[in-house]
């Protein structure tokens, strides 16, 4: 069937999804560019009226970000410093016009290897909450995105929120995006860094790189090497040998493969340096 549905409640939306064959539409900033036509094709399930899916709130166990939260709302929200990387990524999404419409859930579900929001969310140990008429479930973001344009969402499921556990909402964070121009640019590479520093030592490290593998990836080897390291020694630890094995970059019009290796190591070093500087600023 064909139609445009704008449910007012999650239950209505889930019932519609259970019927099958609907395209879920939120910010539409990926759906419309995918067509040259003037209207969205097929059955469209517009979820932008679902108030429960909007906004960021602190829960007993961490933070809940509604799937329909726009990037502008992320930028405007008052959040702990561990979300600075996510905020910075939000400001790097397309343009103000895109940030005003595009949603965090859409960015994830579109599953582009170059999705701006994903690396920072990975460093926040984000979990995805999905609902259907069959019930709800949660899954780590890392497993939710299975490959380019591939996600673990069942056809009758709706992504309703992203959850950041309190354990990950700690420390300082940052994000760097490397592209060939300032605005409206798809990344050559990007990196998100979250570090928990106490008494001059890195207690916890979460580092994630986007656009250099089919799905953004955590740099586990580098993270492990940094954990327990002194702040002074940290930059010396950020070496290509700990980064490159985790990446499988492609060669495309934006950059060649070798460049992505080299540049990722460099922006990772810079991002770590800038997060350490923030942490240092807090201490002194």
């Amino acid at each position, binding site marked *: 069937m064909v139609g*445009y*549905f*704008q*449910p*007012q409640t999650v239950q*209505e939306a889930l019932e519609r999804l259970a019927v099958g064959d609907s395209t879920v*539409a939120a*910010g*539409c*900033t990926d759906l*419309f*560019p995918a067509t*040259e*036509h*003037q*209207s*969205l094709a097929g059955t*469209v399930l*517009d979820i*932008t009226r679902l108030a429960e899916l909007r906004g960021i709130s602190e829960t007993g166990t961490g933070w809940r970000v509604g799937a329909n939260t726009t990037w*502008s709302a992320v930028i405007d929200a008052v959040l702990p410093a561990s979300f600075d990387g996510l905020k910075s990524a939000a400001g790097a999404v*397309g*343009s*103000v*016009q*895109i940030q*005003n*419409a595009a949603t965090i859930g859409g960015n994830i579900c579109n599953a582009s290897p170059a999705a701006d929001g994903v690396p920072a969310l990975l460093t926040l140990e984000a979990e995805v909450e999905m609902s259907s008429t069959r019930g709800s479930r949660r899954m780590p973001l890392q497993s939710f995105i299975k490959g380019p344009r591939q996600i673990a969402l069942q056809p009758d499921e709706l992504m309703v929120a992203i959850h950041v556990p309190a354990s990950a909402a700690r420390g300082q964070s940052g994000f760097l995006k*490397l592209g*060939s*121009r*300032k*605005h*409206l*640019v*798809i990344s*050559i590479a990007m990196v998100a860094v979250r570090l928990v520093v106490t008494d001059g030592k890195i207690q916890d490290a979460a580092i994630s790189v986007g656009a250099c593998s089919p799905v953004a990836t955590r740099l586990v080897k580098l993270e492990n090497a940094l954990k327990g390291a002194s702040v002074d020694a940290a930059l010396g630890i950020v070496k290509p040998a700990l980064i490159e094995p985790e990446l499988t970059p492609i060669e495309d*019009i*934006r*950059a*060649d493969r*070798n*460049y992505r290796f*080299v*540049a990722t190591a*460099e*922006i990772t070093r810079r991002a770590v340096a800038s997060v350490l500087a923030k942490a240092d600023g807090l201490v002194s």
Partner: protein
Amino acid sequence: MTISSETLDIEINGIRHSLPKELSGNRLSSVLRDKLGLTGTKVGCDAGDCGACTVLVDGASVCACLTPVAHVGEKKVTTVEGLSDAAMSQLQASFLRHGAAQCGICTPGMLMAAHALQQRIVKPTRAQVETALGGVLCRCTGYQKIVDAVLDTGKVEQQDQPEAGAAIGAAVERLDGERKVLGLDVFGADLLPENALLVRAVRSPHHAAKFTFGNIDEWQSGHPGVAAVLTAVDIPGENCFGVIPGCEDQPALAEGHVRLRGEAVALIVGAADVVEALTFVDFPVEWEPQVAVLTSSESKERTGDPIHMNRKGNVLITGRVVSGDADAALANAVHVAEGEFETAYVEHAYIEPEAGVAWMEGDVLNIHACTQAPVMDRDETAKVLNLPKDKLRIRPAATGGGFGSKLDVSLQPLIGLAAMVTGQPCRMVYSRAESMCSTTKRHPAKIKARIGTTKGGELTGMIFTGDFNTGAYASWGSTVANRVPVHASGPYRVPDFSAEASAIHTNGPTSGAFRGFGVPQAAILQEALFDDLAEACGIDRLGFRLSNALQDGDQTTCGQTLQGVGIRECLEALQQPWEQALEEAATHNRTNTALRRGVGVASCWYGCGNTALPNPSTIRIGISGAGEIFLHQGASDIGQGANTVIAQICADALGIALGSITLVGGDTALTPDCGKTSASRQTFVTGKAAELAGKDLRRTILSMSNMSPDADIEIVGTKLVISEGTVSREIDLAKLPANEFGYVLMAEETYDPPTQALDESGQGIPYAVYGYGAQIAELEVDMKLGKVRVLRVTAAHDLGRVINPILAEGQIEGGIAQGLGMALMEEYVPGRTENLHDYLIPTIGDVPEVRSILIEKPDPEGPFGAKGLGEHVLIPTVPAILNAIRHASGARITKLPAVPHRVLAAIQKVNDNV
């Protein structure tokens, strides 16, 4: 279950509209434009890449093309039409005053993005403006004047129109500017006659293929609402057009085989909603792909059938200039520098994709479409459609940028054919992908050069060869092949010289005209080798150029003796900024190794008008019995400012206040031929015709009133008042008889630049007027990432006489932005970058500060001494940037664009060699 009401209610600019709810999932942009007639909101890409369609929803800027109408229910939408009440808003007035609108296609989007910011922050900073406007692309202005206009909003200074005789040199607001900032200018897609049919083209997905049609009638009958399907057999005239006589080779609709991806083979005409929704997957066409060649080197090596049977070896043409004995000069030179360089396809990326509408009025076909050359459109389209020229009327639309590509016809024969066959108005609006894949590009060039000097750095000889990939059809390939050798020396004395440029066919996009016709590509290598030579000679790079610069009385490599040569003055004006820039870079680099600064310099010269071919312009100016003065100004104003500049020249030639002149546009039924807006010729050639016509009318008036040449002329009511000192006479216009054009007084003058054909060695007088310029680029190179940030460009350009300083600066800033794009990011790859997120042009955050220095070294031939400027400004930018990259990092770039991975590889090469 979810949408209870039968209609979809939305509020636009405070007015409620009830729409059928079937439109819920439609793009807001299309509903605003097609259903509500609010065409101020422009569409450039339908993908959120350009921001031209920016509107406000509850005060927040969004792309209307990405917003389903259902999203704005219960919200307040503001479009550009809602920005002004009776008068322009302060923001719009500031845009006009600053020259922030050139072609005007991005202006509504820019205004809305700026308005959203100003609603949030009353006094934003420059950085806040750049962030807020970062999502709107502009291809004309270089953004500087847009940012200035936003920052300066509210400072109202009433601008008085200049008095009689003072128009030239005045920073007059563009005369066609008010409708641009109000969103009222009518572009190709903005005229929507009732019941107009929509035309879409079926295009080749292959670079080269044979094709056959199946049962088209059956397909059509299976698609109710399709009124006609047209193919090459339906074309009544010669299915072959082109811009250069003798080189016509391009079919309006391909016959049996296609030579490039995106070539049109059939037209589908019908009810707009039906045709818009078609996908063509079931259209009965069978493709038989063939081996395609996409580069000039492959093409030269290919055996078998050439791409055009009459062009052996796929060579369209080779242009040549030879003077003296370059081989001997290089053999005897003390220092010789040599190099090779390769450039990419560059897309014009105007924000307005091609669009237009055609309709019949009696037996006259009318076409309203974007264009740089209305009379050429008429002549080429008339030939394809087998119409006498007087049965085809081109009524130029406002044109949202052209930069060379809108010189060629695109959709004109297609919509013309559809309107003739159906008898109904027929409209066509190219998608961004369609515009990018089917229209012309800048020629990819593979060039080599050797240049020699004496021990002291005096140029002695140069040899240049270049292959220019001219793509599938001739277009302006021969112009490029002829222009490049003439300009390959740069504005310098090279006594012994040999240059050859070939236009080579491939199955790539057709390469045509693009700001500079091949000269920007050639200048890159010449200016890079000059840096090598200056270094070898131990001479300052600017000094090297200065000592070799052409001067009055010097001969060019074509043997032409020049007068009014301003290159020395340009370079001299750069001396102080050059020294300061070098000092600042050195200071910076003393303490920075990761981020290195560099400074580069390069020059340009450029002949204005056609290369040794006639290119006349005719200007008519008439005074009616009612006392109105009409200037028939046919030079297409695609944003560069001809409407204003030509009027300023004519006003001063006539000696009447600019404000008393009314413009009549380039409608081929109303206005004589002013030729094409190309080759930086309009200010010079049409300007000269305007000067002659103005002076002629002035002579007539003075002689009728028996007054001296110094008398003042004024229109008072229906009377001309001619006065000098205490003497004053009147001509009662109402009492004079009107001529066939309805004018009681009229002058019409034609000007064609005096040139002389080039002989087989390229000797002759290719151009009557040249313009000159030189630019310094200051930039930073990130040594670890290869990223380049251009900080400042100081541009000195010799305009002969500055007609309008604001418009001149606008050309310089815009040309530099395009040059920066070509240098650092732009590469069109057929089939891969047919959108504005894979094909990158500079955004507001990528352009440098531009400092313009306007030099006036009068040209003996130009109107009031004026020279052309439009293309000149792009030529020095790329070499100045590349020379600065090398100065900063040692990296020698040999292939464009200098994207980060290429720059980093070049830096690593230097490190490896150390």
